[in-house]
């Protein structure tokens, strides 16, 4: 329990990395024992390391893996309320519960994340415009605090701690287990509608007018389109299919489907695989795949929610330099101008955008949760060094001026000052932190970079 492995760990973007002492408890008591051992000046929890930047890194300190803390603790078949340990992955939840007619209430774009990591980032999915973020479905958390206490936190019990922990990036303590509510489904399929738009105005208009008809809605934006085509997109929107929607063959076993084959990217990929030219070709091919008129189809949830999961270790495609995902959100009134500005700045800066995703958000939740009403934009780009960093810093300032913010689960570059301006409820969060963890026993590279600590310095 007090044994560790010293190793370099990376964020998913492979741009941030640091050496730390890695603990891997096998039991809940082992987590407490590792932290109680007092061997390290600080600790941070780590699930599957799918956060892009430095949220699950802790240079020269302790990193506590939850990969072996992965038991289901209870399940109510009438209500769909499940309780599980923090290291249970979304993949396992789907495997166990989809065949019984239950689905995740909220899911990010990969199923390779742990429940603990998902709560710590208060993740959002394609249904945020309707259902909000994951914390809306979390009933109860069990936490290990800096003083060694194990306590429960929910909307009724220790509610301050609950709102500081969802979205709290692991900095309030270790999440030991999570109780949450699943969503009832009739089938494992999604009825999807693909629709091509010509420009940003059309994209935003359709999202605003029609989002209420779809449980899931997101726009894939052609990141390289400029001028009058700026913001042209494929809208990908869907609802859970009912048995009536399925083909007779699918309907015989509506909760089953043939899983896709998976591929693994080899460890060494040259940088040119994803360069300006290949990215341009990909974007334009993808855009052209869809016609002007809407296309409907029925696909299984795996293809709908997790297109990238069939390519294991796809982050290696960016080569050694790694990549950045910049995800920001703008309030509704400034969204249009802000989106135009961001997209045109990046295309002017000759930054190749591999993946641009636009989505409307619903309500705000935890004190440090990312989502707020408005539009969120996520951009993937290869790490091109200083020129990219300076563009991103300019963007941060722009985002602040528009009253928006950047997602910490993706962030690798923000400054402490910018963070404070983006998260106006940080002061409230900080009071909790100072009270519960005055020594900053729970710290990460992210928390040091952005000074998400207790006592203000």
């Amino acid at each position: 329990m007090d044994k560790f492995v010293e190793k370099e760990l990376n964020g998913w973007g492979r741009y941030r990395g640091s050496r730390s002492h890695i603990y891997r408890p096998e039991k809940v008591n082992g987590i407490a024992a590792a932290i109680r051992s007092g061997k390290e000046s600080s600790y941070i929890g780590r699930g599957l390391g799918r956060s892009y930047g430095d949220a699950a890194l802790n240079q020269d300190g302790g990193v506590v893996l939850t990969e072996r803390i992965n038991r289901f603790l209870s399940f109510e078949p009438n209500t769909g309320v499940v309780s599980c340990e923090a290291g249970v992955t979304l993949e396992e939840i789907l495997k166990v519960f989809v065949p019984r007619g239950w689905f995740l209430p909220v899911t990010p774009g990969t199923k390779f994340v742990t429940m603990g990591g998902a709560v710590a980032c208060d993740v959002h999915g394609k249904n945020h415009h309707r259902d909000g973020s994951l914390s809306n479905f979390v009933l109860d958390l069990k936490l290990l605090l800096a003083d060694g206490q194990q306590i429960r936190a929910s909307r009724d019990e220790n509610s301050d701690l609950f709102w500081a922990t969802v979205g709290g990036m692991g900095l309030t303590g270790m999440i030991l287990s999570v109780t949450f509510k699943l969503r009832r489904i009739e089938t494992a399929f999604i009825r999807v509608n693909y629709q091509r738009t010509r420009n940003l105005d059309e994209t935003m208009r359709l999202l605003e007018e029609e989002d209420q008809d779809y449980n899931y809605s997101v726009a894939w934006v052609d990141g390289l389109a400029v001028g009058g085509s700026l913001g042209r997109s494929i809208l990908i929107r869907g609802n859970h299919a009912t048995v009536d929607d399925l083909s007779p063959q699918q309907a015989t076993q509506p909760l089953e489907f043939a899983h896709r084959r998976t591929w693994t990217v080899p460890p060494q990929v040259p940088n040119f695989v994803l360069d300006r030219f290949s990215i341009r070709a990909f974007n334009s091919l993808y855009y052209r795949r869809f016609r002007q008129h809407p296309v409907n189809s029925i696909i299984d949830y795996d293809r709908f929610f997790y297109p990238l999961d069939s390519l294991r270790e796809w982050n290696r495609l960016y080569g050694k330099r790694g990549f950045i995902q910049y995800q920001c959100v703008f309030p509704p009134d400034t969204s249009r101008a802000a989106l135009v500005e961001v997209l045109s700045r990046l295309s002017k800066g000759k930054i190749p955008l591999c993946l641009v995703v636009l989505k409307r958000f619903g309500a705000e939740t935890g004190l440090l949760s990312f989502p707020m009403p408005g539009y969120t934009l996520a951009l993937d780009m290869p790490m091109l060094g200083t020129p990219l960093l300076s563009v991103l810093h300019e963007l941060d300032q722009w985002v602040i001026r528009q009253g928006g913010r950047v997602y910490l689960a993706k962030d690798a570059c923000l400054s402490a000052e910018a963070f404070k301006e983006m998260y106006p409820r940080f002061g409230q969060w900080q009071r909790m932190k100072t009270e519960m963890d005055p020594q900053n026993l729970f710290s990460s590279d992210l928390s040091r970079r952005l000074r998400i600590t207790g006592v203000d310095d």
Partner: protein
Amino acid sequence: MKQVLILGATSSIARAIASEFAREGVNLFLGGRDLAELEHMAADLDIRHGIQAHYGSVDAEDFAAHKDFLENATRTLGEIDGVVFAIGYLGEQPRESADPAAALKIMNINLSAAISLLAPIANILEEQGHGFIMGLSSVAGDRARPSNYVYGTAKGGLTLYLDGLRNRLDRQGVKVITLKLGFVDTEMTYGKRGLFLVASPEQVAKSACQTLQKPSGVYYIPRFWRMIMLVIRLIPDSVFKRLNL
């Protein structure tokens, strides 16, 4: 429906073995000393596989309590088709060298507890004329190395004891399986230097359960350890003494 007793159920190898059984619909009794953990395990096996998983507290070194524990376990299971002995303790050789009490602790947990807990089960299985005993021994028991010879002695003793049970019970229709494990990625080995060819608990569990389809006997897991240990045992004493193992 089959019923199996797992001793040392909280070990990661035993956990993976329990999942293998549960996937086959086998009901389980989990014996261990960390009740909170056993409760989590039992709930998990029930939710994932819909089996009945019971659990109870057993401390390897508390020999006096073994009888009651076994009575409770067998009563709860009703009938017993097999037992897996996964309790083990590696210790640290420098400590054992300095302190005989520390060495005896290793002998007690790895060997004496096995005898104390398996003997009564062996009698039940012999009487009913079917079932299996599976013991998790180690390649460390094949040859005593300076770095862990007390553990090696205990595991070597366990291997011999299981041999004895096999020689006695085979003709009664009871299978006795000795698993000689190589390095496995568990709490026992995590953070230790100088390990090689480390297997995952899931791989080991899969192979372990496959041996139940095979004849009574000794199995190396993973299989290549058989060759490695053959070579190691062939090294003459005069050379072995000078190796830094």
